[in-house]
């Protein structure tokens, strides 16, 4: 494979075990507060009246997100030092030697991918496990998923198979940055919206 690469996330298959998140943190030795891959628990629901009874009608699903190594990466566009850059194979990386830690990329990214490391005073982010790819191995998060809910591949192939426009709450409009992310929706993703659902684990994912 030569890239550009993309992730495929199957919301219908994800059990929310967070093995992907833990594998990422483990492989990259991430400090407390840094999660290059995060599993968001999206939940919502309501009470319906049924005669004298109140019946809960609730839903929940998971969303595993890392950096989507966008085709139009706004982090690269706005970075004042050009520390944030996109390699020829589409992988978006931050060069720690030139980063000034201004956090502008973190403001601009709608996925929360660039993350500030207090210890170094610089931004850090998902590398798509470029070292693994070079060695012919899958990224750590993909390899760790017991449900096979997370896959990776060449962007063109994944998009041909799964489409480019499918998205669901709380994902932003893909037209903004053209993310390398194909998603298979959960059966309840259609019910989730800003007024009907919320991220249920904000402390965990740093929101």
């Amino acid at each position, binding site marked *: 494979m030569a890239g550009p690469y993309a992730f495929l996330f199957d919301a219908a298959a994800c059990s929310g075990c967070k093995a992907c998140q833990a594998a990422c943190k483990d492989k990259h030795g991430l400090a407390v507060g840094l999660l290059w891959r995060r599993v968001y628990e999206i939940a919502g629901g309501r009470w319906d009246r049924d005669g004298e009874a109140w019946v809960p009608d609730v839903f929940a699903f998971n969303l595993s997100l890392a950096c989507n190594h966008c085709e139009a990466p*706004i982090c690269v566009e706005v970075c*004042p030092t*050009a520390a944030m850059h996109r390699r020829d194979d589409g992988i978006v990386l931050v060069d720690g030697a030139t*980063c*000034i830690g201004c956090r502008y990329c973190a*403001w601009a990214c709608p996925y929360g991918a660039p993350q*500030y490391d207090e210890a170094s005073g610089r931004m850090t982010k998902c590398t798509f496990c470029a070292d693994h790819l070079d060695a012919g191995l899958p990224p750590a998060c993909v390899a760790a998923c017991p449900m096979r809910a997370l896959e990776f591949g060449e962007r063109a192939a994944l998009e041909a198979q799964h489409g480019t426009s499918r998205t669901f709450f709380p994902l*932003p409009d893909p037209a903004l*940055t053209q993310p390398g992310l194909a998603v298979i929706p959960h059966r309840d993703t259609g019910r989730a919206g800003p007024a009907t659902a919320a991220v249920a684990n904000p402390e965990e994912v740093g929101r």
Partner: protein
Amino acid sequence: MTERPLVAFTLLTQMAVGAFLTLGALDAWAGGLTGQATAHALTNGALLAIGPVVGAALLASLFHLGSPRNAWRTLANLRSSWLSREILLALLFAVLGGLFAVLRASGAGSPAFRARLAIAAAVAGVALVYAMARVYRLRTVRRWDTPLTAVSFFATALLLGSLGVGTGFVLLPDVPDALVVGPLHVIAVVAAGCFGAEVAAEGSGTLHGIRRLLLLLGIVLCVVLLLSAGRATALVVAAFLVALAAQVLGRYLFYVTGLQRSL
């Protein structure tokens, strides 16, 4: 909140640009009225005070950086980053404006050269405020990506700049009363307009409500100032302090609301 240094940086820079423009207008007005010497005496002190304000602003911006020793690299992406352009224009405004202030205070350089320098600094200043607004017009941040961001930044520049200059004038003992009252009335009109523009864009919530009250109080003070015929020192200082409080709170809220994210 980690954006506190940026509240200081954006407000101080905008105040400096607004003050420079106010002094330019005042200089032109007073020069026509009284001859160059009086006009220069009127504005030199305030002009020289802008330098430390810009210096403090740039210093404050460094406190936002995790790696300030790399700060010199910020000009590396002028091709696509409005943040790079903002810093370039801030430096340009500081250098041109500073050079002009020093030349005029010392009487060096020909008046024609100094005038060209002042115009160049003013253009850099206006471009700087525009670039600052563009920094926040990220297509991924809906609350910032509106024309109101630029309106608010320019209103802030004129509001704090004009009232800042007005405060300098009423507090300087050697400025004659006859020269103070006219400019103060113009400043009152400009500041009232800026207070009004800001109040129109206010959001909802307790802190926004407090800010709305401050802005309305500012309008009242400006109207009273416009109706007063004397030096009105207390009024001008009060209006400036109210403007400062309203804009510090407003800029804080700007960051808090803009950076609320779903992911």
